[in-house]
């Protein structure tokens, strides 16, 4: 095994947590990672409000701009803090030196960032993205696009992977036991992911079902949103369990139509990640769900959360895809109605938890 040069693209908390974790692994074993590079795209490309605004445009509601980049408060006391300062910050032109690139930027800025980086990338490189979203349809690209497809469309890189699983930024920061699944059609990519990521606190599994990994991770924000609503209404653990398992079944039905394997949704990348994302300290979408459950209007709720929320746009995408493929989507539809203010919270929750069929396999 020869050491790899690893680069992380992204300026948010998740990107920084990844970079810090990689640096830690490099310290432990130089023959696995030679260098860790960190590229922060220009701020105007990746501001959080853009993410929220793009959903607002789609929903045709007017949302005031949310806060900018996430403040780095929670990480101040983390074990990574000292090490993180020593990640080598690089300019975009130096990305060509990396063997493996991790991409962790908000979905709406993925294409812009990739276009900026593309002239410096080449075919020997691997790109693994850690983005929990798909790219919603827009004028230029009329279909929902997977991040991995966007990488193929915008850059010369072919060896693409995606990460999902129960590992949130705080877990990496604190070296708490966690796991990730790397999905890629290429065995090489999985091997590289294991080489650079797996460490004493992080287990890395691999699968060829890249599409399943990408979609289940994107789906976790939907489940987190629903769990947030359930949480504020104090519905308890069984309700959460129902949302996780029935949500997985529902999302899997859509994902299979897009080429994913169903079982991915019932493994670490699916249910595994959903369990972590629906925890009290979980994702931004969980917080958003709690606010929506308190009847805070969506624009105001997004502003209060102040972090990138993939939930609303993923609910919309899942809703549209379910419609397109004639797939029954009770949880997604209920959330969709809720986000559009067409549902009272209580009704929405009843709808969330009542599915009209009784055979679990359907």
């Amino acid at each position: 095994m020869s050491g790899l040069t690893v680069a992380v693209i992204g300026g948010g908390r998740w990107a920084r947590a990844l970079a810090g974790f990689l640096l830690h692994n490099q310290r432990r074993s130089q023959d696995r990672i030679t260098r860790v590079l960190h590229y922060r795209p220009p701020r105007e490309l990746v501001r959080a409000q853009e993410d929220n605004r793009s959903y607002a445009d789609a929903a045709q509601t007017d949302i005031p701009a949310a806060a900018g980049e996430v403040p780095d408060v929670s990480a101040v006391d983390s074990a990574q803090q000292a090490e993180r300062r020593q990640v080598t910050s690089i300019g975009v032109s130096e990305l060509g030196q990396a063997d493996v690139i991790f991409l962790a930027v908000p979905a709406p800025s993925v294409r812009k960032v990739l276009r900026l980086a593309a002239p410096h990338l080449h075919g020997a490189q691997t790109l693994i993205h850690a983005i929990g979203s798909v790219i919603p349809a827009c004028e230029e690209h009329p279909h929902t696009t997977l991040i991995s497809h966007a990488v193929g469309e915008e850059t010369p890189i072919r060896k693409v992977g995606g990460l999902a699983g129960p590992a949130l930024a705080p877990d990496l920061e604190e070296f708490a036991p966690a796991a990730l699944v790397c999905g890629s059609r290429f065995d090489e990519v999985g091997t590289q992911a294991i080489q650079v990521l797996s460490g004493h606190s992080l287990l890395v599994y691999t699968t060829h079902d890249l599409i399943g990994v990408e979609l289940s991770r994107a789906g976790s924000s939907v489940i987190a949103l629903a769990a947030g609503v359930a949480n504020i209404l104090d519905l308890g653990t069984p309700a959460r369990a129902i949302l996780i398992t029935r949500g997985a079944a529902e999302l899997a039905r859509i994902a299979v139509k897009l080429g994913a394997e169903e079982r991915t949704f019932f493994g670490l990348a699916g249910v595994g990640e959903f369990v972590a994302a629906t925890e009290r300290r979980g994702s931004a979408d969980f917080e958003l769900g709690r606010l929506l459950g308190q009847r805070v209007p969506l624009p105001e709720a997004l502003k209060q959360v102040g972090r990138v929320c993939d939930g609303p746009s993923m609910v919309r995408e899942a809703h549209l895809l379910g419609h397109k493929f004639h797939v029954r989507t009770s949880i997604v539809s209920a959330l969709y109605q809720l986000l559009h203010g067409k549902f009272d919270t209580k009704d929405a929750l009843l709808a969330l938890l009542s599915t009209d069929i009784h055979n679990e396999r359907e």
Partner: protein
Amino acid sequence: MIQSVVVQGFQPVSDYPLLRFHREREGIVRETTQRALSSVLAASAPEYVLNDACLQEIRRLSESSAQEEVRDLGDWKRLWRSLGGKSKRELEHDLRALIADYTQDIAGGFNKQVYNFASQVVPPALSLLLSPEKPLQLPLQMLQPHKLLDSLAERLQVQGPLSHLRKLAEVGTLVCVPTHLSNLDSPVMGYALQAAGLPPTTYGAGKNLFTNPMLGFFMRNCGAYRVDRRIRHELYKDVLKTYSQVILERGYHSMFFPGGTRSRSGRVEGRLKLGLLGTALTATIEGFRREAGEATGGRVRPIFIVPVTVNQQLVLEAETLIADYLKETGRARFIIEDDESAQWRKVVDFARSMMTHTGAIVIRFGQPMDVLGHSLNEVGQSVGPHGQLVDLARYFWVQGKPQALPQRDAEYMNQTAVAIARAYRRETVLLPTHLLASVLWRRIGQALPGLDLYRRLRQPLDLHVPQADLLADVARLQTQLLHKRHHLGPRADGTPEQVVEAGLAAFASYHTEPAAIRTPSNAVSIGDRQLLYYYQNRVESLGDAE
């Protein structure tokens, strides 16, 4: 940037790699044998490989009659019985002998005189014989062969970025990958390449086609090599792939039909077979390894993949193919030997019918790509998504050096296959029969709502579509297709009246029972529904995208 050109008349190339084939043939056979042997032995022990080959061949030959076999049943049985008592060295010797025999059987030939005869004398002669109108002018026409060729060029149109392809043929090796509907596709492609000023290619043709003495003679001497699709064991496939790789490495332009067999349904191929096509990738990697000093051997010129659609107004074997497709699953045949292409009468009827219709066949060359599906600039360099140059060699790097990795390369090939299939849908040219069949098939669907395919084909139905309705349908379909940037061929791009007339005339001119007929009351009634389904599948399959 690159304009489509419609070629009129010939601009043949005079220098091309196949001219040196007869000198290199023995070397190619030797190299193929040696390399196939080493790669087989690197993966497995000789007794396993021989055992598998023996058992599969014994089973096949016990069930079907032998025809031009490399070894007959008795030989296989004797070899199989002897395997147990042989030393490793003896086994390797037997394996080498078997591989050598297969290679000799596969290796093609090229004879310039035969090729020139086939390419220069046959087409005008054909057009002369088949010229339906004004037989009295025959003597006059014989004095003006170029006029005959003009008329053939009118029937058989060639489109695409031809000047780009001609340049690429000078700096690299072309691998043409046409869609496949008919046994006539390979001669038609041979004509198209010549008409486009492109070099002739070598290609794999089913061994069954060589049994026809006339066709076999020409094919053997025009660059075709023999593929025996009846042999199913891995050893044969390995030898075949090695042969293909060796000739690509040596710069012989090649042609594969990646659909594997003729499209039974009439659909544009969506799923491609990667076996032989994969040799374009393995040969490319071998070239990079030689450049990097990782392997020895001559320089390998860059390999360029050229998707081609062969679009036919009528398909010679349509009736047999669609009938086979509609048989219950599992009973469909992979190899069909008794179809229309084996009946002279049918071939002549077909050719005559073709010659009466303008633009009866359109061959459209698509944008060339490298083995990973990248676009190419004028000089054959790979170009990335935003026009930047791409270093192809780096895709095969393992720790800074080019290396073959079977899993990675198989996935690369999958992606290239997707790019080719996409090109097929983009470059398909629809002709009047396709449009007419499509609108009539929709009318059948409306007349028999809620029924599955088989009922729509069999349920008694007497459907007459009034001319005005039909014209409106055709106009709507034309608009839809043009909106999605599909190509409409000669007549198909005309007025709806022209489309309907051309379609009906074509249907009436060849098939046993026409797919649609004009009624005395100026309506159009449906005929052979299987054929309607077959021809409309061409249109329908364009919507399968993603």
